[in-house]
């Protein structure tokens, strides 16, 4: 098997096999996870025959053989597209990994919400004995409760607690 380099690509990363009409890329395992290689390769199976291999421990090789006869320029373009797709897939994998916890939390909430409203049995079993929440501004008070006529004791207490106002000369 005689191989040649492909103009514009490093010879240790991309080599072409004119006899087979194929091109082989070497992909660093540390940079691109297998899922990204699968994803990029899968996108190309409508245009190429794709064979993945692992010739060394630290690298995958991706051999692309176009289904139709391809010129050198077409091969170069295809390799460039594959490299871009590989980067895109690797980035997507990274985002998925970073957001996995959030995705799982949202999914769990959505599923628990989809279970529907609580039944009467659920409400009967619910513990309502918790302390009432703090409401310093009286937002949760009813109008009647807030503006009812105060008793003389309450009025005196409120006046004692009120801040003194400036008197006019």
């Amino acid at each position, binding site marked *: 098997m005689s191989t040649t380099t492909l103009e514009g690509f490093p010879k240790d990363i991309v080599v072409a096999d004119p006899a087979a009409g194929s091109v082989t890329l070497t992909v660093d395992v540390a940079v691109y996870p*297998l899922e990204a290689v*699968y*994803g990029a*390769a*899968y996108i190309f*199976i409508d245009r190429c*025959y*794709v*064979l*993945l*291999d*692992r010739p060394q421990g630290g690298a*995958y090789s991706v051999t692309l*053989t176009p289904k139709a006869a391809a010129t050198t320029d077409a091969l170069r373009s295809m390799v460039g597209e594959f490299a871009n797709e590989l980067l895109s897939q690797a980035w997507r994998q990274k985002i998925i990994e970073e957001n996995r916890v959030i995705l799982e939390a949202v999914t769990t909430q959505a599923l628990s919400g989809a279970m529907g409203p609580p039944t009467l049995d659920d409400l009967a079993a619910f513990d309502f004995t918790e302390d009432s929440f703090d409401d310093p501004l009286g937002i949760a008070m009813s109008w009647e409760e807030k503006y009812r006529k105060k008793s003389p004791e309450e009025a005196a207490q409120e006046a004692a607690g009120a801040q003194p106002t400036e008197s006019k000369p």
Partner: protein
Amino acid sequence: MTERRFHRSIYDVRAVQGAIKALERFAALTLTEEGEHHVVRVAAKSPARERRVADELCNHALGLARREVF
């Protein structure tokens, strides 16, 4: 005789077997295990047909490996 080598860490043996099953009516396909690879040998009426079946085998195995559907 044409052969394709599928690395074990990339292709589950069930994916390779599934691809062989799908294409065995087009050529004689034999699967052997050699070191880190599942090796499939393809024998058909002509070298061109062998190569075509071997190439299709690669895509089929990749599809099955990716989907993990056997």
